[in-house]
């Protein structure tokens, strides 16, 4: 079964605006993570939220988790050009299952 589908697939916003990406999953989870991938590079861990948490913050990042809807959102506030990347949600312990990703472009 597919696990972790992000939307939108692509998002372009002006620098300084907020960017919101969503992730849906199908099976029950212990936690959900968000990773960033710059073009052609490795994945960088951003934030992990556990199934008993509803919201978590890290700097300009805010993640929410709604286990009843099996969905999560990643909000990046005050976006910068350096935030241009693909963003993936991932679920699992050990074996991570990644979503399809949102390609975020910040326009200077």
């Amino acid at each position, binding site marked *: 079964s597919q696990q972790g589908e992000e939307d939108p697939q692509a998002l372009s916003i002006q620098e300084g605006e907020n960017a919101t990406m969503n992730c849906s999953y199908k099976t029950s989870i*212990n*936690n959900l*993570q968000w*990773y960033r991938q710059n073009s*052609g*590079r*490795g*994945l*960088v*861990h951003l934030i*992990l939220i556990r199934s008993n948490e509803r919201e978590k913050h890290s700097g300009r990042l805010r993640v929410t988790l709604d286990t009843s809807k099996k969905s999560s959102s990643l909000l990046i506030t005050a976006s910068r050009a350096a935030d241009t990347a693909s963003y*993936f949600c*991932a679920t*699992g*312990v*050990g*074996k*991570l*299952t*990644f*979503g*399809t*990703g949102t390609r975020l472009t910040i326009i200077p």
Partner: protein
Amino acid sequence: EPEVTQTPSHQVTQMGQEVILRCVPISNHLYFYWYRQILGQKVEFLVSFYNNEISEKSEIFDDQFSVERPDGSNFTLKIRSTKLEDSAMYFCARGSSGGPYTRTDTQYFGPGTRLTVL
């Protein structure tokens, strides 16, 4: 936390050839993982490796693939007879520092090896 390093950054090979991709994690960590990402597609789990043994593998990880830690530090992924469809980015990851014996959920990825099979 520092990432792992991977070599080579790009490998070009002929179909049917064997390739070995290398990962150099921080020493004495026990949990390692290999993933691949075909261009434009999802990152897919291949195999997890704990204490020098495979702990879990995906359907992709068939008999053409093998992993080992030959010298106690480097962690390798071998593809015995490459196919065109093996062309992808291959990422090594390690578990986070909950201590080398603790499997925590966060994984730290290397920069990847781009494998091109001609």
